[in-house]
């Protein structure tokens, strides 16, 4: 038997079904042996529970018991809800994440601008009659711009550097 039909039998036994459905289920139980057996078993359980269940009694009078519940409801209704919060407190939950997003955007923009500006690093513009030779020492983090007149085409003196094979070259 399907579970929903079992529930229908239970509801029929508890008198929870509408009248026309209760009549239909009653006819079906009378016809069907399995349903009839289930109804009988559930009826026995119901009877056993009603006989042996300990009665629960409230020590107070009915009026006093319900007046307590009423007072509790009134007390909870008196507590200010979300609608009575000041406008700043209500907007704060939106303002905080918005401020975070704006700040993060600014930081990212600054980082992007800084990174972008490095694409045109080192722009050299010698004056009239001047030339510049540039040395980069990555390990020492130093850039040297050697200035000389255009007439003097000699290489810088007293320079030592490593060529592409790692050999130290001295210019004297």
């Amino acid at each position, binding site marked *: 038997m399907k579970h929903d039909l079992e529930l229908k039998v239970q509801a029929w036994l508890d008198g929870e079904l509408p009248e026309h459905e209760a009549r239909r289920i009653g006819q079906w139980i009378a016809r069907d042996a399995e349903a009839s057996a289930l109804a009988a078993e559930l009826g026995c359980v119901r009877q056993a529970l009603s006989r042996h269940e300990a009665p629960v009694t409230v020590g107070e009078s009915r009026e006093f018991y319900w007046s307590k519940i009423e007072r509790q409801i009134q007390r909870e209704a008196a507590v200010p809800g979300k609608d009575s919060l000041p406008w700043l407190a209500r907007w704060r939950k939106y303002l*905080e994440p918005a401020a*975070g997003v704006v*700040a993060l955007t*600014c*930081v990212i923009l*600054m980082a992007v*601008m*800084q990174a972008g*500006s*490095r694409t*045109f*690093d*080192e*722009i*050299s*513009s*010698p*004056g009239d009659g*001047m030339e*510049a030779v540039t*040395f980069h*020492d990555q390990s*020492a*983090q*130093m*850039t*040297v*711009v*050697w*200035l*000389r007149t255009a007439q*003097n085409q000699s290489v*810088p*003196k*007293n*320079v*030592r*550097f490593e060529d592409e094979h790692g050999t130290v070259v*001295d210019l*004297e």
Partner: protein
Amino acid sequence: MRRAACLLFSAFFLAAIGAAAAGLKLEARLVWATNDEKGGPNCKPLDGDLAGKLHGMFKWKSYFEITNQLACIPVNKTRDIKMSAHCTLRVENLGGSRVEITCIGEGKEVQKWTDTLTPPKWLVFGGDCENNTAWFIGLRSNNPEPNKIISKN
């Protein structure tokens, strides 16, 4: 936890904005390189990491500091740094550690150079002098490095 994260982020953000708005702190040194052991009366031996770097790249025996200037240049502003009676640097802070440096010798523009000065990088201009000596002008930003700003917070 949420408040602490908020404070941390704000501190980082304000530090980054503050560092960008405070301007570029620039150190400029005029150096004379020679093979003599002694310099002139107004010379003192060059110290600091610039001395080591020049010794590593060039073969002169001695490096003497003639001038040591400090300047703070706001963003998009230009400052003249007088290094000697004959030489002046005109430095414009382009923002984001970018600078445009104009070397002016005897009132004449000798070289214009645009670069990014992030510590501890040195930008050094140099040239020959009489009697196999040379002059150097070393420039370095004294602003804190970006990763140090973060570590302070």
